[in-house]
């Protein structure tokens, strides 16, 4: 925390911080409208694909009896993975009292909420009978990993929303009290309601801190569970490529890689678009880069275990699966994801030069795309090679190729996730104002005092 300033200085600084951090809320230009238009248009196209699928059945996809899980499941795993960053940044790092990550918490929670919400939605889209969704609750069998997944994904969503909302309350009150006329009236109304009559006294702060601490601790087992349980959807089967004991930590490590990439990209976009150079500084990117290298190294370690150990033994079924990845049909995809999505980023980001905002963002783009394809590689090749031969079926049963409907619906999920993030960014400050102001040495009295006081 910096030195205490005089009230006048503090007020001036707070005004500047508030002004900077509400830019995303105020700003509504052509570009914003265009962005919304793009998102909604593509999301609508995807929804249309979904309607076709509901009408015609899952036959409109490329999945058939052998490859019966395809792109949808890969996409689901991807979204669950990305959402895990909320747990890492706003809980784990917080509890370890690591302070550089504080301004990034809300970005991480935005990503977490959008990703886990979409994971929940798109898994319904993979069901043959979405109309029977309620059977999960009516006839739920607790021995099935799917029930565990439904439980933890829902819990994670709730905790993530709370972790987003609770530290937001003082900000909402601040905007309610100090909001300028540039903020649309309806947004001010929303702030007034959501601020829950926040007054900013010591007792209320205590409640917020207390609640946050409980949530941060609660989210640790839940966060670890969502991706571990998701990995068990595969590891609980007998299939080669999935039948492994390291799937839980392997998935969790991979999740941190994907999530870190997503958060870095978002930080960069906010930094440029909302002119937050002084908030998401080079220092933050540098540290995110170091975190990135760390999680990538852990993931690399698991990858080596996952592929090298069975590769050394080459048991019959495993060897078919692995040859398919190493030198067969999926070799290009496999090696590209390993090199562009893991090894090269690690090598580059060891150097400080590549941990600067632009280079690291470009690296993140590659890593995030590779993360998506990595999930595809985890799901599809294993299904293409069951233990018994695939015979007496048409060619499209043997080789899986996603159809345009599947691509449309997957596109919908991306657009919908971006839409959630955009709405959150447009609605609420992307950095916690009061926390940031306190870091800068502004006293709580000044943060909570009504507008124009002391001027």
């Amino acid at each position, binding site marked *: 925390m910096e030195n205490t300033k005089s009230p006048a200085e503090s007020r001036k600084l707070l005004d500047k911080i508030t002004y900077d951090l509400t830019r995303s809320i105020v700003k509504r230009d052509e570009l914003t409208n265009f962005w919304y238009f793009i998102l909604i248009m593509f999301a609508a196209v995807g929804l249309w694909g979904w309607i076709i699928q509901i009408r015609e059945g899952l036959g409109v996809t490329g999945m058939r009896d052998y490859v019966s899980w395809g792109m949808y499941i890969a996409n689901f795993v991807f979204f669950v993975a990305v959402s895990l960053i909320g747990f890492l940044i706003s809980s784990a790092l917080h509890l370890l009292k690591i302070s550089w990550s504080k301004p990034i918490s809300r970005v991480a929670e935005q990503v977490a909420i959008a990703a886990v919400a979409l994971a929940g939605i798109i898994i319904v889209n993979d069901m043959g009978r979405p109309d029977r969704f309620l059977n999960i609750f009516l*006839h*739920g069998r607790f021995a099935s990993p799917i029930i565990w997944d439904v439980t933890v994904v829902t819990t994670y969503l709730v905790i993530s929303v709370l972790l987003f909302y609770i530290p937001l309350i003082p900000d909402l009150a601040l905007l309610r009290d100090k909001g300028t006329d540039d903020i649309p009236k309806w947004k001010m109304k929303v702030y007034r309601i959501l601020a829950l009559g926040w007054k900013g006294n010591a007792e209320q702060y205590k409640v917020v801190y207390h609640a946050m601490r409980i949530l941060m601790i609660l989210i640790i087992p839940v966060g670890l569970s969502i991706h571990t349980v998701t990995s068990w959807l595969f590891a609980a089967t007998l299939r*080669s490529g999935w039948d492994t004991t390291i799937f839980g930590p392997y998935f969790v490590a991979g999740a941190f890689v994907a999530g870190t990439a997503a958060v870095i990209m978002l930080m960069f976009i906010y930094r440029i678009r909302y002119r937050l150079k002084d908030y998401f500084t080079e220092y933050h990117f540098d540290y995110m880069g170091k975190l990135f290298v760390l999680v990538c190294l852990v993931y690399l370690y698991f990858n080596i275990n996952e592929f090298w150990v069975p590769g050394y033994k080459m048991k019959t079924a495993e060897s078919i699966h692995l040859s398919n990845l190493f030198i067969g049909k999926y070799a290009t995809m496999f090696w590209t994801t390993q090199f562009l999505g893991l090894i090269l980023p690690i090598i580059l980001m060891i150097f400080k030069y590549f941990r600067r905002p632009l280079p690291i963002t470009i690296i993140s783009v590659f890593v995030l795309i590779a993360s998506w394809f990595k999930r595809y590689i985890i799901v599809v090749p294993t299904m293409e090679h069951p233990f018994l*031969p695939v015979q007496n*079926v048409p060619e499209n049963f043997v080789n899986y190729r996603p159809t345009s409907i599947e691509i449309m619906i997957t596109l919908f999920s991306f657009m919908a996730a971006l839409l959630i993030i955009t709405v959150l960014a447009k609605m609420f400050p992307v950095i916690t104002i009061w926390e940031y102001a306190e870091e800068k040495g502004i006293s709580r009295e000044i943060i909570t005092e009504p507008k124009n006081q002391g001027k």
Partner: protein
Amino acid sequence: MKALGASVGVAGVLGSSSLLSACNQVETTSGDTIKLLTSSGELVEVKKSQLKPAEIPSLSENQKRGRKGLPGRKWVMVIDLSKCRNARQCMKACQNHHQLRPEQHHINVLQMQEAENTAPYYMPKPCQHCDNPPCTKVCPVNATFKREDGIVLIDNERCIGCRFCIAACPYSARIFNWTEPREADKYIGVTYNIEANVPQKRGTVSKCLFSADRLRDGKLPSCVSACPNGVYWFGDQNEDAVTNGTTHETTIFSELIRDNAGYTLMPELGTKPRVYYLPPKDRAFPFQGEIEEHHS
């Protein structure tokens, strides 16, 4: 429903395998008789006066007894690989019985070759009806389950179509209705029979169920009866007796397995199948197929 009454009734009289397969009725003739197609593909004539509506248990009753199974039984199948010559009558009968499309298989005759220099052979592969079934374990809604009599069944009125069971099955025994099932419009309004899993329903999983409906009627499964080559033995392990579907000869199950070195598929997986194989030794027919790729 009423329109189907007559044909369904005849099926009952004929003791046909499935109440619904009688819907394959081709034509009716004038006079006292009616021509009907049985599930095994025979065209027969019956007196109209013999027709009476069959008793169809209500859906809930059917589901209830279908979940329980036949008390005191432990069904077991023995497949003699030395007899199989890929006639595929089992596949055909099965697809008729369970209203499957040509590419859908509850039982699939595979061309096998274990290793590079080993002899190729044909292997009919139904659901193994494991005693430790990986598929029922993972079902989130208890739509697939293990019955007392050893059969693993599916309730397609409850299945949500998540396909976890398909992923979990190491024998690729399960199929999914990706599109409208075969001749779906013909079976609109027909009460679901859990023990034959008909009518098939879009968006749900299906698989071999040892023709549980036929077993209830005291008959052998469709595939067993349809085989012209004596490949299949079927029976009750509690009685230690199995009957050959072609010759109708009954023998002692444990002896058959012991004397012929019977085995189960992939025992290392711990699934404990109820389907046993007799090795393809001294084969009655030479292997004439070509081993396809996609082998694992």
